[in-house]
């Protein structure tokens, strides 16, 4: 049991110390930051449960273990304890409610949907994403399209309209935000807000055939003026 405890502890330290280096926990968009916040919040709440269980477990296993001194001890049957059982029913419910409130708020805001916004608002850039075995095509607002290379303007909200030409793919830039599936029979819209300058890697996250592993694309977030110049050059 001690080995187990050590292992878990070292695992946690690794996770905590390394978090600045972990892509998903340090995302470069406000959408991704909301998601990372949820991850940290849920991990925090769940860590409480984890610690309580581990402490009780270690304590009980250690204290009530068989030993020469206790070998004649006769345990007393306990049927249960209504109050205690209610406690560990109600407390988890409360913890889950605490977790559910921000979950609902952020999910309602972020969930990909089939209805595209009609007019792009100010500060929103639309990108049409097409997935096919085994490449990505990105069409910018002025009609220019590029394969496997996505260039975005910084500090803008990016609305992706995604659709596939063959089977299901999934559009994922871990360093920016969460993924959304790409379907042949419907178009989905997903918004990533306030993307930050940098170079990232995008991938296909839904198994789509032999070259699934290599269905990646590069992502570059550049200054707004540079972006304008970039798409005009493509024309």
């Amino acid at each position, binding site marked *: 049991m001690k080995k187990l405890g050590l292992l878990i502890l070292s695992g946690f330290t690794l996770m905590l110390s390394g978090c600045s280096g972990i892509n998903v926990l340090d995302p470069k968009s406000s959408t991704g930051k909301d998601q990372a916040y949820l991850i940290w919040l849920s991990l925090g709440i769940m860590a409480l449960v984890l610690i309580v269980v581990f402490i009780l477990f270690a304590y009980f296993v250690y204290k009530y*273990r068989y030993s020469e001194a206790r070998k004649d001890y006769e345990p007393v049957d306990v049927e249960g304890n209504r109050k205690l059982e209610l406690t*560990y*029913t109600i407390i988890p419910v409360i913890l889950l409610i605490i977790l559910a409130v921000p979950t609902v708020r952020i999910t309602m805001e972020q969930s990909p949907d089939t209805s595209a916004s009609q007019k792009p608002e100010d500060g929103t850039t639309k990108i049409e994403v097409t997935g096919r075995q085994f490449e990505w095509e990105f069409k910018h607002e002025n009609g220019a399209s590029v394969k496997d290379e996505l260039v975005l303007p910084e500090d803008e909200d990016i609305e992706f309209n995604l659709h596939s030409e063959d089977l299901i793919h999934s559009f994922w830039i871990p360093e920016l935000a969460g993924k959304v599936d790409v379907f042949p029979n419907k178009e989905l819209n997903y918004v990533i807000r306030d993307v930050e300058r940098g170079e990232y890697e995008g991938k296909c996250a839904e198994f789509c055939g032999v070259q699934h592993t290599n269905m990646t694309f590069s992502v570059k977030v550049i200054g707004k003026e540079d972006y304008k110049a970039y798409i005009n050059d493509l024309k």
Partner: protein
Amino acid sequence: MEISIFGFSISAPSDVIAAWISTVIMGGIITFYVVKTNKFPLIWSYLRTTNHRKIGTLYILFGFLFFSRAGLDALLIRLQLAVPNNEFWLFQFEKYDQLFTTHGTMMIFFAAMPMLLGLMNIVVPLQIGARDLAFPFLNAVGFWLFFAGALIFNFSFFLNSAPGIGWTGYAPLSTSIFTPDVNSDYYVFGVQVSGLGTIFTALNLIVTIIRHRAPGMKWFRMPLFTWATFVTAIMILLAFTVLAIALYLLMFDRMFGTKFFSGPDGDPVYWQHLFWIFGHPEVYILALPAFGIFSDIIPTFSGKRIFGYSAMVFSIVLIGFLSFTVWAHHMLTVGLGPLLNTFFAITTMTIAVPTGIKIFNWLFTLQGGLIRFTVPMLFSLGFIPSFVMGGVTGVMLSVSAADFQFHDSQFVVAHFHYVILASTILGIFAGIYYYYPKMMGLRLDETLGKWHFWLFLIGYHLTFFPMHITGLNGMPRRVFTYDPGDGLTVTNFMSTIGAFLMGAGILFFFWNIFKTHRENEPVSDDPWNGRTLEWTVPSPSPEETFDPMPVVEGMDPLWIVKKEGREMRTTTDHRSTPIARDSILPVLMALSLAALTFCMIYQWFIASAIFAVGLFALFIVRSFTDEKKEHYGKGEAS
């Protein structure tokens, strides 16, 4: 690789050739052993048996065989992923896809399910005082159908046609547009045939538990493993039936050009709905029986009754019910819309509550007990913290917006291995160590068992804990390599080491079985100081148990009489027992169905029609030779 035999030239990849060679060698050794020790009568008796213990043993034997094969796949996966840009043997591209497909499908359908069904088969009748399952013949049919399905699925690899569509078989990748070869058909038919067997066995268990309990064995006196089995069996009936139809539709899409999952009106998401209406309950179908096993082992080795029995029963039922309301949490990124995403996030969170109740009840069973660290108990104790860690990430995954990041990444892989291994696999091992006396009349070696346990547990955490971080660093599932610059190298390498530690643990288990059987020291009826009815029958349990029939006077009936220092009360006034007679028909039925489906896979429709006629002929033979014939029509005098 190309091989030339008698002028025929066969070209096959080296992994397939290696599999053929090792199978032939293994087959040779087994045949030699069988001939030398003249095991034919034993094999013949097992082929024809309808006895619950023997069928349960067969389930576990073959389940473990397929577990080993799927485990080998896992090791190959880990070897390929050990270092960045690796090119291990052939396992990139299609071969890698086939590896993870086979690993997943076999582990779920042909390893975990049969080993659990085997334990249910052996233990449930003994726990409730039934002499056999309600329908012994059907029980044999159920087993052999599982066997036939597994045979079909395994055969694909030997023909270099293993499916490569993932165990989830997502359409449209699994339709004939994208995978026109027979590979995916092996998946469809293998799973379909064994699923049918699972449905029959579940039905059988339900009727047994409803109708064949010993006098005094009231519902709320049943051991928790029996309760878990009961709820699980009901879930199997619902979930596997939906799976059967999903596979039926996919079969039509693949072979007869229907347009459910592709085409202008076809909907790939419909497959996902059907699959996960099966798939999510399936997770609990795997977990609940394991919970049941732990709920029986922990009291035994704490010397104390289970804490909060009725809450335990209630939470099993509640988990079973809730498991049907959460399937779309596997589909949060498919664009169901904000409302449904939120709904399924909330329902998923609620499952944590009954699960939490169970965890704390186990903990409080330990409190005030006298904990004996036997091997079954070690597996049960290892389960508690490990499973809670998996549960924690489960709640994290239910947070739907966060799931946009987790989904289909290695984080999810880490999560479900955490929960399934902790519950199902540790549960199965706990169950096998605990019930080996009832299966074989022997007790497995404790020292080797401890080696097995510690290597497996440490390997398990070492494999899957780093995998969370691999996922958070952006590694998707089902990719066969990564770049050195992705920051995935260290964690992946740790996982590979861990996987081999688990493998080493399994080797100790093999050694343990070998050693135990060689030493062959008979064990008493009640080697663990048990509390329930199964420890009143001889080890191994004979074909005619419970004669005379015990009268159950409360929960933990054996413990009650032990406390009072007396024998169990018995009675001759009990219901009639199931009628059983050995029969070769179940094997023949399953084999003809296997032949039928094999011909279907290659679209030899005339041949499959012939086997269908053969199968129907076997039904007729069955009806005419019904074992009840000798027992019916005797008037009132019976």
